[in-house]
């Protein structure tokens, strides 16, 4: 009896822990169907209305904020992924001076609390007299995404067999051809993972944004501002839609990765 209890304790605990993680997600999703008025606190009945008319509330303020977040996330992701991938290649493949200082400079943004990053940038923009708008948010997001891109892509570059590129050079491929036809495609999964991570970090960032956004509203900032007087159910709709989309992407990546592994196993 004691033995079987011990055997089941860990799986049951793990299930409960995961359930605990899901509680607020479930709550947000369920309340996206609430037939609520201005604030979405008490349950007033089921409706699809909020899902069908997401942008109708408050002259589309929620959708405006959501669109800003998508735009900022996209630009910051492209810039941070480009700069970060270049650094990752350099760190793994080349020797250069100030190596340890470079590593430190890349590590520090990840070890600094967001409120310090946000206040620092805001202090700099203030002393330079730069007005806070969309551009300052993008500059800030790109900054904190770079280090995460470097860490993610670095692992991929390190696992790349240099013999493949050597073979390309032996076959008279130019430096550019070797990069475009061999190195880049092999790094692509790592680069895509880094881009997804950057986008997720940028999209959900609130603290740094709050210090550098001026009058521009992003989706998290919209929620923060509305928190005091109540958040419309439309915000739950958008958040739930993003959640479902992200879940589909991740599950697809996992499943296709597993299928690829099986194909490779069959070949060898």
């Amino acid at each position: 009896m004691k033995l079987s209890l011990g055997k089941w304790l860990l799986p049951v605990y793990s299930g409960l822990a995961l359930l605990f993680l899901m509680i607020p997600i479930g709550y947000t999703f369920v309340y996206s169907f609430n037939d609520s008025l201005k604030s979405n606190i008490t349950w007033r009945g089921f409706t699809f209305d909020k899902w069908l008319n997401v942008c109708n509330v408050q002259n589309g303020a929620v959708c405006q904020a959501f669109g800003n977040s998508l735009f900022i996330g996209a630009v910051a992701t492209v810039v941070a992924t480009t700069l970060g991938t270049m650094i990752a290649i350099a760190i793994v493949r080349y020797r250069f001076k100030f190596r340890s200082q470079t590593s430190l400079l890349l590590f520090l943004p990840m070890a600094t609390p967001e409120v310090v990053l946000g206040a620092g940038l805001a202090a700099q923009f203030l002393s330079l007299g730069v007005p806070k708008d969309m551009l300052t948010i993008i500059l800030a997001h790109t900054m904190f995404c770079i280090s995460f891109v470097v860490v993610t892509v670095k692992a991929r570059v390190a696992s790349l067999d240099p013999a493949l590129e050597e073979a390309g050079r032996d076959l008279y491929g130019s430096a550019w051809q070797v990069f475009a036809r061999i190195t880049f495609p092999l790094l692509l999964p790592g680069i895509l993972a880094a881009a997804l991570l950057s986008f997720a970090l940028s999209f959900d960032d609130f603290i740094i944004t709050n210090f550098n956004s001026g009058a521009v509203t992003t989706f998290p900032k919209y929620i923060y501002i509305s928190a005091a007087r109540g958040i419309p159910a439309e915000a739950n709709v958008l958040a739930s839609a993003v959640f479902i989309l992200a879940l589909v992407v991740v599950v697809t990546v996992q499943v296709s990765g597993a299928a690829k592994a099986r194909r490779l196993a069959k070949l060898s």
Partner: protein
Amino acid sequence: MAFAVFSTATAPSTDPVARRRSPVALFLLLPGILYLVLFFLTPLVSLLLTSFQTPREFGDIGQYDYAFRWQNYTEVITTYWPHIVRSFSYALAATFFALVISYPLAYFIGVKARKWPLLQSLMLVLVIAPFFISFLLRTLAWKQLFSDESFVVQSLKALSLLGPEAHVTGTAFSVIFGLTYNFIPFMTLPLYTTLERLDVRYLEAGNDLYASPFQVFRKVTIPLSMPGIVAGTLLTFIPAAGDYINASRDFLGGTGTQMMGNVIEANFLVLQNYPSAAALSIILMTVILVIVSIYVKRSGTEELL
């Protein structure tokens, strides 16, 4: 997608590739490094300069001049020491609870679930699922679930486990609860990545040598998962100490639970008292860097990046 970061953050550094010296390296590094110098390093310098500023004579609110007014620091420490203490004690408590909650979960996913890869990946997706939904909405969901009219609080009151006048939100409990909840995935993922590589033969060897299950856990499992424990606790402690969403009055906090982040935000964005906000930020960053470097040195895992 997030695991990549954590797995490499805890991976031992292997370095088989012979590195070349080439001008290409400079071309690859310069743009990104320059970006970080301009938008990470110089902002820290400007934060430091701001923290010593003095109010402009006959100036408006929010107008300051560069000076060396070190009193800014003594003033913020005397005014805000409860917030400083609260930030680090709440972060410490949340880190502890997150570790205790996450370790068994990570152990199950990383070690016990190895036989079922599909279950393993499904559980991992569920661990990172909270990242896919807005951090603020998740925290607000807990606020609603713990509100005075909520089912949870009403039942606790009916069972007399909670006094009739008691509240759950706005207390130290709800802030630490929120911080713990929000950082569990950051703790679980690095723990998972080290436990996933754990060679179970070491545990079997311990059992064969007549160690009790507890001894095996303490002497074998814990030391072998140390890189994950270090990465997880840092990934939880640092953002938790600087967080101000959970402690905010509109979320899970109240007037008596404000942390350093709340004070920095209020001073910077509302009161326009930039020097105080900057001095507090510098204090927060310095304390964290000192704690991190001591902690990383003592646990012997200096290769975090």
